[in-house]
């Protein structure tokens, strides 16, 4: 049985964003979701943990329905999932220690001593290649974009989730930081043995990291398969998207050199 199943997902705001999306993600898989801006990638990711109401359809995580399930189901699903937000979404008024502590489930926080919590926070920050002694007491406004992103990742992994959802983890980062975050995603997925779903514009990085990828276009699932099949696809929309992304990547490299 698939670990996560998206069943007939429909969502519209002023106009349709997702229309009848069906997807299945297997345990231990690293799954990429591509697509132009505004095609509902982030909406699909948010629906995994019930962050927005769907017009129709459901998401099933390890057999638990996220929508319309018994009381407490969504909370149970959320405890299994770490969510890395596009712009880190760190809490402005809390320092790094307090931000990462928020990632430890509430019940666990009450059982652990402050020393034990600090140990967990410290380990998570080290896992994302940050020096805890230098950042623990800093506010998010005192960190660089790349560091904020890493703190966001540390917050997502500190509760040791089984599933990691990455919403455009490299958006807004320079090429050096993009490569570093991609290496980090691969390493964490391996070390923590989590199932990852990555929404990204970075087609090159996504194809390298993921075992399977999907492409959304105008809210409809246009492709789902291996990276090799994606590159070999004859679908004109898939080809147009991958060619444009490749051209952008080449342009980025020229700008760096």
């Amino acid at each position: 049985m698939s670990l996560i199943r998206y069943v007939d997902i429909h969502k519209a705001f002023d106009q349709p964003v997702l229309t009848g999306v069906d997807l299945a993600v297997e345990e231990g898989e690293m799954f990429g979701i591509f697509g132009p801006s505004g095609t509902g990638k982030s909406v699909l990711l948010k629906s995994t943990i019930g962050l927005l109401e769907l017009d129709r359809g459901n998401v099933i995580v390890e057999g638990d329905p996220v929508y319309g399930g018994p009381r407490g189901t969504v909370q149970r699903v959320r405890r299994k999932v770490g969510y890395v937000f596009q712009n880190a979404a760190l809490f402005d008024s809390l320092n790094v220690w307090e931000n990462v502590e928020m990632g430890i489930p509430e019940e666990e926080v009450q059982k652990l001593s402050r020393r034990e919590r600090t140990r967990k926070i410290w380990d998570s920050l080290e896992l994302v290649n940050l020096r805890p002694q230098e950042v623990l007491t800093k506010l998010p406004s005192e960190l660089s974009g790349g560091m904020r992103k890493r703190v966001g990742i540390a917050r997502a992994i500190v509760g040791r989730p089984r599933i990691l959802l990455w919403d455009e983890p490299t958006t807004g980062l320079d090429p050096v930081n993009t490569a570093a975050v991609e290496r980090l995603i691969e390493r964490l997925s391996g070390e923590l043995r989590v199932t990852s779903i990555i929404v990204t514009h970075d087609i090159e990085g996504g194809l390298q990291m993921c075992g399977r990828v999907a492409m959304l276009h105008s809210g409809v699932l246009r492709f789902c398969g291996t990276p090799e099949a994606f590159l070999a696809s004859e679908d004109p929309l898939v080809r147009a998207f991958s060619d444009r992304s490749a051209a952008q990547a080449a342009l980025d490299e020229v700008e760096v050199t």
Partner: protein
Amino acid sequence: MASRSPSSSLPRVIAGPLAAVGKTGEQVAEHAGQLGLLLGRTARAIFTLKVSLQSVFRQVYIMGVQSLPIVIVAALLAGIVTSQQGGYQFQGSVPLYVLGSVVTSSVVLELGPVLTAIVLVGRVGARITAELGTMKVSEQIDAFEALGRDPIAILAAPRILAGIITVPILVAIANVVGILAGMVAARITVGLGYEAFLYGARLFWHNWDLLYSLMKAVTFGFAIPVISIHMGMRTSGGAAGVGRITTASVMFMTLTVLILDALFPPLFLQ
């Protein structure tokens, strides 16, 4: 044969206003539903003891202690102006000690609670809407949910509790300051002694007036954070959206304070 929608058979002169009424009705129902949910979730957070006392005290400090100077200045000026205008009107026609009653009643029944509330709409309500609106558009509120935390217990409940605790205290201080300022102004401008002022104040005083003033304060102290939180949490559209919603929130809160104020006399002063 192609079907015609009901609106297509209506002249535009009628269809346009009807559509506008329908849209407004839909928006009002949406606001009411969301406000109901916010209040329900806040009550649940309070009764299940999920609200941090530390957060409540922090909000009491922000709303109360930090607002004190501006509340005192507003009350001071209100007391002085009422006293001066009353003195000007009464000279030569009404015994001047009546001024004590006019100033006291005006400040306690009306100016103390309403001016304090209007000051807090600008100082506290706008701040809450802008703060939560920014958190909403930067996905911080989603992040609380994703981390299994209840944003209502963390963000909304402490602010609402702090409003209910703080505003009556601020109104009580504003009442005292306004009356004292009126008393001093009456002595300076029309030469009314303190004893005569207090005699007039006591002559027409009802203990109920004080309770009425504090009831207004509790109502405003509840309404201002509830509306500002509600508006902040429905923000969308980035920085421009935060600006738009903060303006709308200030208008909405000001109108609510004035409407609630107008409802008080027929309900409680009969």
